[in-house]
């Protein structure tokens, strides 16, 4: 007799598998799930909705064309998508930001930072309870970070600044920046661990 079987996943890996076979409908589903967060990221990094659209379009085109080379070990499909999106957005910033190497005052270097503190539902176009919970947890984790650590991570994440550039920008020793980035990321890993833990049976 058959053993009780595992929960079959309706997850992104399976979608990507379908995308590999040329299934455009699966690409549509992937967009429905993760298009909005990719757009949010691109818009926050470039400050422009129109540019964000171009970038997201490119990112999905890349997923569509390169899905056959996606390796399960590389990470999740959404991580891949967001990495492509962020990479292109940072490229755009470097190309279009006249002050690429003249770093502005810390406060304006990342104008569209994280949404802190946790706000009321507001404009949450994606009403999935799970995504709202993820957002809430990520935002409160960021809120709990010491300001100095969050600032360093913010400049790296939104500005694409290296540790050396951050040190110059904030007028801090490189060692301090390294410590703050390390500690901040470590704290985030701890507070976000519930998003990594195996699900309850």
């Amino acid at each position: 007799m058959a053993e009780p079987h595992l929960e079959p996943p309706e997850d992104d890996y399976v979608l990507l598998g379908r995308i590999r076979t040329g299934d455009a409908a699966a690409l549509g589903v992937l967009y429905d799930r993760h298009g909005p967060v990719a757009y949010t990221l691109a818009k926050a990094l470039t400050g422009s909705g129109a540019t964000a659209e171009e970038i997201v379009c490119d990112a999905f085109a890349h997923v569509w064309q390169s899905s056959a080379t996606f390796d399960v070990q590389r990470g999740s499909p959404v991580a891949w998508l967001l990495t492509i999106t962020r990479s292109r957005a940072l490229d755009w910033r470097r190309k279009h930001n006249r002050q690429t190497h003249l770093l502005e005052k810390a406060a304006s270097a990342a104008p569209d930072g994280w949404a802190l503190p946790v706000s009321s539902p507001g404009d949450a176009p994606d009403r999935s309870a799970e995504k709202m919970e993820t957002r809430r947890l990520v935002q409160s984790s960021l809120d709990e970070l010491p300001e100095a650590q969050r600032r360093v991570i913010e400049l790296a994440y939104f500005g694409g600044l290296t540790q050396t550039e951050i040190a110059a920008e904030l007028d801090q020793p490189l060692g301090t920046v390294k410590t703050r980035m390390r500690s901040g990321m470590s704290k985030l890993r701890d507070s976000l661990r519930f998003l990594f833990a195996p699900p309850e049976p």
Partner: protein
Amino acid sequence: MTGENEQSLAAAYALDVLEESEKAAFEQRLAASPALQQEVRELAGVVELLAYGIETATPPPALRTRILAAAGEERRAPHSAPAAVPPPRARYLPWVAAAAAIILSLGMGLAFWYERADREALETAFQAASADRLVRDARLAAQDSVLAAVLGAGVRTAGLAAPGEAPAARVYLNAERQMLVLAAHSLPPAPPGRTYQLWGLLPQGEAVSLGIFDTQPGTGQSVITFHLPAGVLPGATAVTEEPEGGSSRPTSEPRLSGQFGAN
């Protein structure tokens, strides 16, 4: 335990802001250190989540249309050549989803996964991730056994297909553990009152029932483990559609079948 300097390099690497000049050296250390790989895996997981901390912006509906139109216009040839294997950077995943996802990926029919070397890379990634302190959990034992059955040395595999069609499922036969894992990825659920039944085909021509199963509506997927009766080592397997509850003998031609190749 990685040192503090390495941890800060790992953080920069995960954020994709490690200086170019430091990247090559770091990647060399990464390749040689499972502990450092684990560190990077976890931090990359954090970076992935940071996007969700941003105030959400709604894309215009036209964007979806545009993306699908662009995809529709492209003629994509089915991928045939195996891709180069990137350095293992397995993400930190919920294990039920991970186990089934890996098995279904194995079932997708990519030549990439059939080579023994690649399966070993997957096993290495699995081992490394299992060693993580936050993943140790008694519940993992169930998922571990399925993956172990699939990834063990000497496991034989076969695609199950209808004549002339691409495989709709893949089976993994682990003789040592007397287990067979079926990963169905595009098999529509059986009609009401009917079920699928998996048969092991013995060299003498006899068909032994291994069990009944069904797939998820909407996805056509399932990952199911079957226990092999003692002494039963099929050279091939087949799926037939049977009345609910199964039959003692196949009552129709196989819906899907496949022979185990030499490994």
